[in-house]
């Protein structure tokens, strides 16, 4: 599955819903149905992994002396 590592949760979940919809539609050959099923399960596993591994990232915005916007990780003591 191409591009899967960079897919956001929403995009992956939406594709998952699309495979479910395709299977519900019913006008698929057996081969197509199996292919959709496999893709759907792959997407579901991917989503699951994203949820399990997610960690909140916290950053801070500031303005440098040159007046530029800079963003850096925030470490709260």
């Amino acid at each position, binding site marked *: 599955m191409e591009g899967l590592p960079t897919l956001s949760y929403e995009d992956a979940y939406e594709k998952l819903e699309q495979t479910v919809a395709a299977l*519900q539609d019913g006008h698929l050959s*057996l081969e197509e149905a199996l292919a959709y099923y496999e893709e759907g399960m792959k997407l579901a596993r991917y989503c699951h992994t994203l*949820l399990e591994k997610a960690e909140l990232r916290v950053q801070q*915005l500031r303005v440098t002396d040159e007046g530029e916007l800079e963003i850096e990780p*925030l470490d709260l003591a």
Partner: protein
Amino acid sequence: MLFPDTPAVWSVAQLSRYLKELLETDEVGREVWVRGEISGCKTYASGHCYFTLKDAEAQLLCVFFKHARQRTAAPELRDGLAIAAGGRISFYERDGKLQLYVEQVELLGEGALYLRFEQLKARLAAEGLFEAERKRPLPPAPQVVGIVTSLQAAALRDMLRVLRTRYPLARVVLAPTLVQGAEAPAAIVRALDLLNEHGEAEVIIVARGGGSIEELWAFNEEIVARAIARSRIPVISGVGHETDVTIADFVADLRASTPTAAATAAVPNLADWRAALQERRQELALLLDDFLLRYREDLERAERELARQSPRSRLERLQQQLDGISETLQSEMQHTLVVQRERLKGTALRLHSLSPLLTLARGFAVVRRAEDQRLVTSIQQVQLGERLDIQVADGRISARVDRQ
């Protein structure tokens, strides 16, 4: 000596009058502003209001007449209110009271702040800044959440905890700011503008923990309200405790009662997403089962169809058809014969009833000319002496015409 002709021993009235004039002509007595706290405030049916203005060391009797109150649209007075009262001092001889005759009143301290709050709220509302139509919808699942708050505050830690628990998929971008004090409003505005300039946040939370009206005052400032209004990114306000309401709350796209509530409102709950994911997986499995079942049934149906179409079974079918037809044929034949026989019987009977023999048996005769055997049906057809043949039921009679 201010007034000439003053006696050595004064009457009360004389001294009172003197004091009154003294006070009313004095520069300070004529026009003065006094600040203090109201106590013993009482308004009579007449509309006149009497109260004492006091501070730690002294107190002053005041009277605020109805016409002055109405003329200056004075705020409602009550005990405990810190005010500045402007008017003139005089001496009320009847009661021997020194009083401030109040012309105007201004609220000080908290009272003043509440007034400013109401005035700004009314002005911005009139501009339409609080309209429901202005409020933008919040993104249901923001990938980046902006926060404007103090770096040191507990509010920040509380919000991060909520976000970490509910929705760790997000990234938080913090624009730190002062949240109270004289520099706070400008700092809040700068933080909001910074987040908008950076542009990645999909929603911004403006937050501050609980405090007094003075401590929360920065969020009632006009520049802060306008910065929230012009923010391209939707803003959730979470300022103070549940009962604190600031101007920022009115302008924001969503008001949350506390910083924690704001964080909760900003993001979805992953627990719900996990549940939905589980449902999708189950759906997939069920749908595939359905599919396989349907295919199996199709296959079986095809097999049955195939079996039906084989040569042997076709032969059997034809045989059966043939048997069926002959049976039908036979019964049809039977039926036809019966019908025909009946018809014949019927016709024969009818024929019989029409037979001339029956007529003859009833006594009628058939008369013919003997010569040519022509039927005689009229007297014109015979002559005298002509020979006739008369046929009766059981034979013929030969006769001759005797008379006509």
